[in-house]
């Protein structure tokens, strides 16, 4: 039996009015990868914040026993000194600084008033090698991709002499290849004796790396599963997370009736707005029928979002060529307004960054893309606006006390519903959904899927962009596969499988 490294004993943490953690127990043994899973708001991040000292000793009840001694961390530095290092979901890197500068930010090499740059970059290169990143530490963060940035974060943690590494959703912004590489790196570290805690929504990844899985629900530990003593699969974990077996993660669609072709894009080519010679979307053709859900699968950086945005009123890219037909008529959409008027809706990928106005209430966000629907001659009818917001809150079951609640205070799943409400209120015929379920929990995902199915049933055309393969396979009638700006395959729902999709992508890669 391995040595116990960390025990969090009966941790209870209350915020004004809410009990965020209620008697949580977590035991981590040396040299294992321990996964922490639970729905959004279950308390995973709070627990890790308690552990790392973000919530100082005294603001919670219970004990943290690390390496046999009771710890009373007052701030993050205290826990880092002990070797507990947390890598947060949102990367905390300064884009304008080099990799080396970022790695030792707040922990500079040399003296306080005289930074030793040789040591900084020398050390940095050493740690970069350990994580298998073949970039010079003098390269600026903004010049490398998210996958590499995530590796820099890990190298940064190693530089702090981490003994217990906590990774909060490390793969949420990575594509499948990079994710897999990261997970393999974790397994490699394990061999060298590192202990890790991983928080993740992606259960297939959890199953892949974890030795033990602790499930948290509503602020309490539900169970700890040992992956070596029993067979664990995703549905077993989900049962623990939601308290019931989700036998069907994707709602069935009854009586699919496909209508005429609603939108057709032919020979669509888009160039990068800054690097004029780079083709971001290369000769893509696609169509979608009324009542159809079409999936576009592709890794991140394949050009999916760029394709969608360039169709949606040329909001991305330069020198766009190709034809766009809506309802059989060729049409040119010069800006988002024209696209909306042509009954097109683009539900953006990054709901916080370019989807919602977080400082405004649900009501205001719901009407933003269709102010005409709640105003006359530029004067807003506030009663009508309120009624509309309430109507969509009910329709999509958005959980919020009132529609006057600021969107910034909602959970990811509910934010996504507000974003959907905003676009449904524009009464579109064609909806392009870009990563509609990213970063939201299993229960909310299911509800979003139901909404998508309802839209299709009502005769709308839905294009769903996603990098989660099970979702694409579970939801789509037809799947386009995109790789490096090109469509490299098209599969019907019946013939599609994970293997076939990957094969298409690999083949395209070889053909180059």
């Amino acid at each position, binding site marked *: 039996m391995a040595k116990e490294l960390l025990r969090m004993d009966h941790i209870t943490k209350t915020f004004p009015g809410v009990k965020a953690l209620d008697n949580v127990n977590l035991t981590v043994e040396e040299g294992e990868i321990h996964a922490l899973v639970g729905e959004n708001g279950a308390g995973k991040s709070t627990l890790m914040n308690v552990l790392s000292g973000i919530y100082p000793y005294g603001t919670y009840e219970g004990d943290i026993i690390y390496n046999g001694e009771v710890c009373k961390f007052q701030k993050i530095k205290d826990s880092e000194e002990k070797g507990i290092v947390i890598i947060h979901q949102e990367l905390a890197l300064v884009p304008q600084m080099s990799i080396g500068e970022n790695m030792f930010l707040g922990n500079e090499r040399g003296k306080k008033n005289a930074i030793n740059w040789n040591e900084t970059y020398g050390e940095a290169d050493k740690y970069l090698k350990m994580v298998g990143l073949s970039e010079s530490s003098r390269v600026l963060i903004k010049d490398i991709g998210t996958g590499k940035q995530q590796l820099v974060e890990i190298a940064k943690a190693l530089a702090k002499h981490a003994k217990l590494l906590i990774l909060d959703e490390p793969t949420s912004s990575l594509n499948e290849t990079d994710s897999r590489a990261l997970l393999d790196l974790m397994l490699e570290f394990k061999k060298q004796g590192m202990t890790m805690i991983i928080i993740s929504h992606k259960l297939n990844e959890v199953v892949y790396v974890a030795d033990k899985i602790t499930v948290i629900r509503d602020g309490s530990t539900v169970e700890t599963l040992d992956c070596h003593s029993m067979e664990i699969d995703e549905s077993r974990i989900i049962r623990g997370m939601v308290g019931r077996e989700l036998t069907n993660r994707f709602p069935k669609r009854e009586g699919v009736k496909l209508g005429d072709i609603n939108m057709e894009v032919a020979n669509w080519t888009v160039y990068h707005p800054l690097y004029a010679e780079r083709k971001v979307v290369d000769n893509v053709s696609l169509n979608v029928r009324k009542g159809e859900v079409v999936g576009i699968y592709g890794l991140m950086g394949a050009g999916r979002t760029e394709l969608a945005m360039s169709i*949606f*009123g040329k*909001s991305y890219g330069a020198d766009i060529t190709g034809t766009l037909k809506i309802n059989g008529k060729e049409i040119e959409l010069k*800006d*988002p*307004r024209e*696209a*909306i*008027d042509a009954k097109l809706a*683009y539900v*953006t990928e990054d709901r916080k*960054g*370019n*989807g*919602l*106005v*977080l*400082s*405004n209430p649900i009501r*205001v966000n719901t009407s*933003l*893309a269709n*102010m005409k629907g709640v*105003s006359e001659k*530029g*004067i*807003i009818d*506030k*009663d009508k606006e*309120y*009624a509309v917001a309430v109507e969509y809150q009910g329709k999509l079951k958005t959980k919020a006390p*009132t529609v006057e609640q600021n969107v910034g205070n909602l959970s990811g799943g509910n934010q996504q519903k507000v974003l959907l409400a*905003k676009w449904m209120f524009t009464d579109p015929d064609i909806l392009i959904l870009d990563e509609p379920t990213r970063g939201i929990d299993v229960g909310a995902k299911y509800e979003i899927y139901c909404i998508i199915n309802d839209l299709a049933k009502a005769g709308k055309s839905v294009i769903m962009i996603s990098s989660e393969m099970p979702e694409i396979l579970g939801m789509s009638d037809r799947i386009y596969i995109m790789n490096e700006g090109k469509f490299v395959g098209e599969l019907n729902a019946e013939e599609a499988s994970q293997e076939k999709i990957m094969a298409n992508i690999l083949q395209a890669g070889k053909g180059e």
Partner: protein
Amino acid sequence: MSINIKDVLKKYTMVLALIAVILFFQLTTGGKMLLPQNVNNLISQNAYVFVLAAGMLLCILTGGNIDLACGSVVCFIGGIGAVIMAKNINFVVAVIVMLICGILVGAWQGYWIAYIKVPPFIATLAGMYAFRGLSNVVLQGYVVGISNTAFLNIFGGGADCYVPDLFHGEGMNLTCVIAGIALVVIYVLLVMRSRASAKAQGYSVSPFVSEAVKMAVIGVAVIWFFFKLASYKGIPAALIWIGIVLLAYAYITSNTTMGRYLYAVGGNEKATTLSGIDSRKVYFFAYVNMGLMSGLAGILTVARATQAQPTFGQGYEMDAIAACFIGGASAYGGEGNVFGIVIGALLMGVINMGMSIMGVEANYQKVVKGVVVLVAIIFDVLSNKKKK
């Protein structure tokens, strides 16, 4: 539904601060602060702050963008008007030319900011120098007097710039009293009507008690204010212009789609653009409005001084910006309202006047003003922090 005292205090912090400051000066000046003449001057002297702050609010809403040029523009526009009127041209022509010039100046700056994406700070810094220079050119470095009495009476200059008393009250301007009462009655009726319509449609309304208390406080304050004005010379002309501007901008920011877009662009420009709204038009609108308000402020300023000088308007931009930030506008955009800037402008005005009456040296007055702005923002930042 209970009324949470803490929430009320938080919501009306600046109002309470304003009352506290007024009481402080009332005590330290031995009651001089609230003499009718001083209440009157508070409005007349600070008319430009209210007007400029209304324009500035729109710019700040779009993302904390400010207009550094408006002080110079006030001087430039005032100079144009004075020169036109000195040539014995009808003052109506002068006013129209001044307002159009204001709009043109706003369009000039707005074009660079909205369509060419020059940072507003720099575009308006350039304007600040350029229009100051142009004021000198227009006035040729001289003071130009204004003698057109119709112009002065309408825009708040000279001895007779008050709404005449139709009822010829003895020692008390009855028109002014009646106007005050009428305003309160209209306000109460509007509130009741909006509550009734909200109830009829089944929306929740705030408890009647809290609404009644609010109405009573506002009603008493307004009547007291008009009573003070009535015991002096009545309604100053400048107050009418301030009233029109504030009502118009309160309406624009809360009830029109363009107002909504100002908040949305300030809150999240990308999301707004992808919602089919042309953010360039929104910036342009904000700066054209700022220009128009600079024009009006120019008119009010030269009218009150009955002359135009090349040094007028210095520091006006900072007064307007300070009023907005004290009034709760966010330096990052997307938050703020007209009620707030009224309180902000009044607070600055009261402090200025109170210190002048007390005989505080001008240099120290500036120090105090600086500290007040800082304290107001610190308060805002801290109370926002606690919310999270």
